[in-house]
């Protein structure tokens, strides 16, 4: 019966949801409070054995409980708890208490006493653990209550000496979460025979358990200490010795936690001095801990190794000579530097006693060695990274590579040293590791100059079949410095080989050469005659302009020539012609050059070359001025206002083309102004004065304008990143105006009241939601359309549609132009499809009905969350269109705000007779509900209720095309039978 009753209650409940938001809470409470506790009570009383009771409790736990009825429920549970003899049921009740005290809006301090008293009477260890857990939850819910906190700490201290490990662990957690340094503790149950320390603080108590017999408790003790640290308490330095001892614990989780502990201490007291055992030297604590953690990189457990390797990366204060030891296998094999000045030093080493395994019989017995000089387990950091990078588990290797990166970024000399090791990692068996090490090398490449032999090994990777690796390597080459002209030649040669083997890398290789050239103009200079194959007195044949390899060479040379004015003298005639051609066709790769006897090709060049920061500032000023000028236009019907807007829009668009830095801002403002202009035009039509039937045509243009404004507002909102809520409000405002315009137009054209009433209501809802969303922005919207509307709101909601339309019409016309304030950084999302190029005349043939894969390669700029928003659209000649969602794995992120989509699009069609073009383009999907989701974010309770509120306004979803479409020839052939 009870269950049935409950079910009915919930049915009622689910109906209630449909009623508008404000009324819901009151009604919900009234209905559910008595039923909840009562139902539970009835259930528990009915339970004849423990299994039944457990079942009821489990069922109960699935439903949420409201804040007001929690206390009642808790009382019932506690009452039952005292009566219950079965451990498992008591355990479940204890866990429920914990869950219930997490309920929002319920203050659990009233049940603290009850829980503590049950704790004192409890015999079962498991239930004790659960009760302490409940207390932990309560304690974390009440951070502001020192009295409760103090009591809980006392309880924890009291149970610390329990024989069951679980209880001790929970007590330590409690201490870690709630303990304070300032409140000293007395440990009252100190053993009789032992010397009582009297007043002790939390850290002292916790550190006692570093030596517990159970490894789990030891781990919990360290974790509790770390928790104290996280809560902002300063850990005493005394702990350091204990933590170091735990590094050699038998259990991996203890060692892992101890590594963290040692790290924390090394960050807290980097400069304090610790003695080295077995000698009377002293070193800085951070160095000591660095050495100890380095030791852990060769630990037996890989989890600890990962932890240690990661930790090493964040110890930036360590002294340089310690740091450099990590790459050193001491004096046995510093054999990495072949073919360098270190050759002699290397021979000295090999003549010692250690063979490298690189030469035959170099470990033949030699003269007696000075064994004291060789230290096999060097104290300290010796060779930690050498081990980490050679580890069996790739997790460790990646962690080591990352740590190398962090350390190298802060220390140029270390960066120099770790170069060889990173280069070695290019040969790892796991692609992820290879990729990571290439990225790392790129990040530290500002510090280093590659030697020829190193470059050689780096370039060997260019033949890798993985595209990611190759592109990462190109990226790396863009940033590297090389030392000699042979290096440049070598790099060029390898890149051309790469180009030959993988023609798809064309763009990336060219880009790479562009940077290589502009970075090393002086190194390129002596190579020019050879590269361009010019000859002092013979004319050489003119190379083929379509050869990608030749273009690559030219890109290198032209970019070097930019900062090397003597270079153009070496060019032959056709080189100049080719320059002109390339400057036009590949302007992003070929810089403007001041060539002797040639005028700059067009004005743009001078803008660019005279560029730099000054021009950006000037452009920014110009942008600001244009906007200010527009803002003076108050009355939309003023003569010349339209012209002014027209000109400004044009100016802004041009500015966007000239200054890529400001393109986002300029485009954004231009689009916004265009919306305003359209609105203005629509309102200015004479049609408003004419009789309805006479102006159908004009009506059509106005309707179109309204629709266009709506579309533009969606673009404004979703295509640009870096918008603040101020701008969003402005956009929504324009959208509201457009909707108003639509409404007015519908009112004029349509007969009949029914549809009008509906759309009026909808409009009013829109206004309301606007008010709700942008409450904070309203003060900025002075004298605007919305403000006027909101003033009239009470009247609007009661009046008739016809009247409403009239009011809207006047307000629309009276409202002024809302001034646009630009945020710091606005970027427009753009996408460029690199592949397919759309140039091919060979159709892609496939059997109709089957699928063909089309490789798609595109770069996306300033797109947030591309995995969810970017889609590929296919438009077939017959008007069919397909939207394809690429897999999340197809997006790569080569740089900040930049994404790369490399995917395959599957297309298929029925047979055609002629090859036809299919259009491919990228779409940006949006849904307006995502921007206004603030209302639905408040999730109720501790178990997810299935019946959530529907979103207040229907989500508007749509897509914006944001790339140029590319045409691909395809030819589905009929299947052969």
């Amino acid at each position, binding site marked *: 019966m009870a269950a049935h009753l409950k079910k009915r209650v919930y049915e009622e409940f689910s109906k209630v949801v449909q009623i508008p938001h404000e009324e819901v809470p009151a009604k919900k409470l009234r209905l559910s409070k008595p039923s909840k506790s009562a139902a539970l009570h009835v259930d528990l009383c009915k339970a004849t054995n423990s299994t039944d009771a457990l079942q009821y409790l489990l069922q109960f736990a699935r439903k949420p409980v409201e804040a007001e009825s929690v206390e009642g429920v808790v009382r019932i549970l506690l009452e039952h708890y005292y009566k219950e003899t079965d451990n498992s049921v008591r355990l479940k009740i204890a866990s429920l208490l914990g869950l219930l005290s997490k309920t929002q809006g319920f203050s659990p301090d009233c049940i603290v006493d009850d829980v503590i008293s049950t704790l004192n009477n409890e015999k079962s260890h498991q239930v004790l653990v659960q009760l302490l857990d409940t207390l932990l939850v309560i304690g974390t819910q009440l951070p502001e209550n020192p009295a409760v906190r103090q009591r809980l700490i006392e309880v924890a201290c009291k149970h*610390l*000496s329990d*024989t069951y490990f679980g209880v*001790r662990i929970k007590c330590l957690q409690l201490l870690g979460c709630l303990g304070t340094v300032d409140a000293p503790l007395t440990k009252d*149950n*100190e*053993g009789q*025979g*032992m010397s009582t320390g009297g007043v002790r603080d939390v850290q002292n108590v916790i550190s*006692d*358990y570093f*030596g*517990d*017999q159970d490894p789990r408790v030891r781990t919990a003790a360290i974790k509790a200490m770390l928790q104290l640290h996280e809560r902002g308490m300063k850990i005493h330095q005394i702990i350091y010795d204990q933590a170091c001892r735990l590094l050699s614990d*038998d259990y991996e989780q203890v060692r892992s936690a101890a590594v963290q502990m040692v790290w924390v201490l090394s960050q807290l007291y980097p400069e304090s001095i610790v003695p080295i055992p077995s000698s009377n030297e002293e070193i800085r604590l951070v160095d000591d801990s660095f050495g100890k953690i380095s030791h852990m990189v*060769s630990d*037996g457990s890989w989890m600890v190794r990962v932890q240690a390797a990661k930790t090493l990366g964040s110890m930036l204060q360590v002294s340089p000579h310690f740091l450099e030891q990590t790459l050193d*296998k*001491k004096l*046995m*094999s510093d*054999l*990495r530097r072949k073919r360098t000045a270190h050759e002699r030093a290397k021979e000295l080493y090999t003549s010692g*006693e*250690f*063979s*490298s*395994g*690189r*030469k*035959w*019989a170099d*470990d033949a*017995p030699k003269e007696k*060695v000075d*064994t004291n000089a*060789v230290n*096999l*387990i060097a104290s300290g950091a010796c*060779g930690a990274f*050498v081990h980490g*990078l*050679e*580890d*069996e*588990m*790739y997790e460790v290797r990646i962690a080591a590579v990352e740590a190398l990166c962090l350390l190298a970024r802060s220390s140029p000399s270390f960066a120099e040293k770790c170069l060889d*090791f990173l280069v*070695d*990692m290019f*040969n790892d*068996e*796991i692609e992820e590791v290879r990729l990571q090490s290439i990225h790392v090398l790129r990040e530290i490449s500002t510090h280093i100059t590659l030697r020829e032999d190193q470059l050689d*090994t780096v370039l*060997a990777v260019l*033949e*890798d*079949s*993985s595209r990611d690796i190759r592109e990462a390597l190109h990226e790396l080459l863009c940033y590297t410095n090389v030392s000699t002209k042979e290096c440049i030649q070598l790099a060029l040669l390898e890149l051309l080989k790469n180009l030959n*083997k993988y023609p798809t890398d064309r763009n990336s290789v060219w880009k790479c050469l562009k940077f290589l050239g502009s970075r090393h103009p002086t190194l390129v200079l002596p190579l020019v005659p050879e590269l361009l194959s010019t000859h002092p007195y013979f004319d050489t044949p003119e190379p083929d302009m379509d050869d990608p390899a030749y273009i690559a060479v030219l890109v290198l040379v032209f970019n070097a020539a930019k900062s090397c004015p003597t270079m153009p003298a070496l060019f032959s005639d056709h080189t100049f012609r080719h320059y002109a051609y390339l400057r036009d066709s590949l302007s992003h790769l070929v810089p403007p050059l001041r060539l002797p006897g040639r005028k700059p090709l067009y004005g743009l060049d001078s803008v660019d070359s005279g560029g730099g920061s000054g021009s950006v500032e000037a452009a920014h000023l110009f942008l600001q001025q244009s906007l200010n000028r527009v803002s003076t236009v108050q009355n939309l019907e003023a003569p010349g206002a339209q012209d002014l807007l027209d000109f400004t829009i044009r100016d802004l668009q041009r500015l966007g083309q000239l200054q890529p830095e400001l393109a986002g801002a300029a485009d954004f403002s231009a689009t916004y102004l265009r919306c305003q202009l359209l609105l203005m035009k629509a309102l200015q039509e004479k049609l408003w004065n004419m009789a309805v039937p006479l102006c159908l045509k004009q009506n059509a243009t106005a309707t179109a304008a309204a629709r266009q404004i709506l579309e533009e507002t969606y673009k404004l909102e979703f295509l640009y990143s870096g918008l603040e809520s101020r701008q969003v409000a402005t956009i929504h405002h324009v959208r509201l105006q457009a909707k108003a315009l639509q409404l007015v137009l519908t009112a004029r054209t349509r007969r009949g009241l029914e549809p009008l009433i509906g759309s009026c209501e909808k409009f009013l809802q829109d206004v309301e939601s606007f008010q709700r969303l942008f409450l904070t922005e309203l003060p900025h919207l002075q004298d605007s359309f919305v403000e006027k509307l909101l003033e009239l709101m009470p009247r609007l909601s009661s009046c008739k549609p016809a009247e409403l339309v009239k009011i809207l019409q006047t307000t629309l016309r009276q409202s002024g132009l809302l001034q646009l304030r630009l945020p710091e950084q606005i970027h427009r999302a753009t996408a460029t499809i690199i592949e397919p190029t759309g140039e091919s005349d060979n159709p892609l043939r496939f059997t109709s009905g089957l699928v063909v894969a089309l490789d798609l390669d595109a770069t996306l700029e300033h797109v947030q969350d591309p995995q969810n928003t970017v889609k590929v659209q296919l438009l077939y000649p017959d008007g069919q269109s397909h939207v394809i969602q690429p897999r999340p794995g197809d997006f790569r992120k080569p740089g900040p705000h930049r994404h790369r989509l490399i995917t395959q699009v599957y297309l298929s069609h029925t047979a055609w007779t002629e090859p036809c073009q299919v259009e491919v383009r990228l779409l940006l999907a949006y849904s307006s509900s995502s921007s206004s989701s603030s209302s639905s974010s408040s999730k109720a309770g501790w178990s997810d209720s299935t019946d959530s509120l529907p979103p207040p306004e229907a989500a508007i979803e749509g897509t914006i095309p944001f790339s140029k479409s590319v045409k691909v020839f395809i030819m589905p052939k009929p299947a052969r039978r």
Partner: protein
Amino acid sequence: MPEIKVTPLGAGQDVGRSCILVSIGGKNIMLDCGMHMGYNDDRRFPDFSYITQNGRLTEFLDCVIISHFHLDHCGALPYMSEMVGYDGPIYMTHPTKAICPILLEDFRKITVDKKGETNFFTSQMIKDCMKKVIPLNLHQTVQVDDELEIKAYYAGHVLGAAMVHIKVGSESVVYTGDYNMTPDRHLGAAWIDKCRPDILISESTYATTIRDSKRCRERDFLKKVHETIERGGKVLIPVFALGRAQELCILLETFWERMNLKAPIYFSTGLTEKANHYYKLFITWTNQKIRKTFVQRNMFEFKHIKAFDRSYADNPGPMVVFATPGMLHAGQSLQIFKKWAGNEKNMVIMPGYCVQGTIGHKILNGQRKLEMEGRATLDVKLQVEYMSFSAHADAKGIMQLIRMAEPRNMLLVHGEAAKMEFLKGKIEQEFNINCYMPANGETETVTTNPSVPVDISLNLLKREMALGGPLPDTKKPRTMHGTLIMKENSLRLVSPEQALKELGLNEHQLRFTCRVQLQDPHSDSDTLHRIYTHLKSVLKGYTIQHLPDSTVMVESIVIKLSSSAEDPNTKVLLLSWSYQVIDLSYSQLLLNIRKKLTCSR
């Protein structure tokens, strides 16, 4: 004191013929049973007559453990078990058990069929021998008998190589076999837990070597191969059929895959195909990468590596050939070498050790003119490279293993004496433990200090726990009262009462008494009362009772007074206490009473 004895029959200060006898806790174990590659006479096998002059070995050995399938670790096994005679258990891991007979059979064929030796073990003997083998799994504790247990750990030297932990009671020995601490392309690194054995018997092949990073060597190798291929040259890599060959195959295979190379790679057929088959099966024994990717593709199913045919050697164009045997002393590798030696574009890469006298050894030492049989000479124009790919732990690796296992003593085998000496010094200096390096036939004796486990009754433990302080000090030793009962090979600690009960004895009370003569004029009862009040005033904190039968009790000390008949002034004070009373020393009490009474007189 109990002792562990270790006697190498082979591999003592030597490489090859590994065979080590260990006596531990009354058990005799033979670790490995290998042959020596350098000899063709009796010295080839270990001297089993050391164990017994005549008769079978079964009664002298409790078990034999084979660490891996290399012939210098298992080559003498059929000889020992079938020809000398041993019927006890032989332990080895699953891959070793699978691959070992193939190698033994191959070895037998070469010695018997090619060299024509007689009095050698037969195929049937190999089969019979393998029937005695009990396979081991990693980390599985196998009970050989009631007391002896063994456990295998991953050693990473070749597929299926294992280290063994041998334990009798609380004494234990770890034998490493051959092991490798740096992972390679197909195997992981050796690993052992902190088992703290009494002796760690470790190989020390590379006792004085610290090798360059693996990656660096691999890169050099690949670069050399790649360059030769690009030049259009041919690369010959002489290898032994198992172990390194597979590693190099994987290395080249992945490189070919990565770099999209087209030149063919060949592998001489025969033994290798069978072995590769086992490599495919024992994926769990390989490294992380192969284990994780074998679902998509088993790394040992080579795409680019094909079987070699004699006629391919004359094909034009670049190619890479793996050929056996590894030291260029005979067989296919030598044939191919002869064909290619004249062209300077070609290259031979020796990936491992070469014995003196082989062609491999000669060309590595720079000899450019070789004398062939039949007085012909061969000009060596091709490039000769050496790359060490052998998978033994280097000095640092050995140290790392010692740190992992934390042994109490160290014993080095399987290495050259001079090199061992150096490492021995290092180990003693760094870890402060004894290190031994016995020669063949020498016995090293290590005394151990085993802890003796004692059963304790739960009640006693709980009672003593309740008396002691709180828990955090549990790691500190704590004294407790109890009775140790040694009965029928078992030790038990019980409470005294229970011990009495079990032994059927009554409890005896031991009391000490003492007489003190006093001169006191008062009557007996008065004197006693004075003593009582005095004690009460002096000894605060003790319970002092004046009992009606004219005695005074201080805690459990009884004080009685009697006066002698002839002299009533001379009082005799009787004190009696049991032996447990410690804190209230009786002398102090006496002193007190006497002082009081004398001054009150």
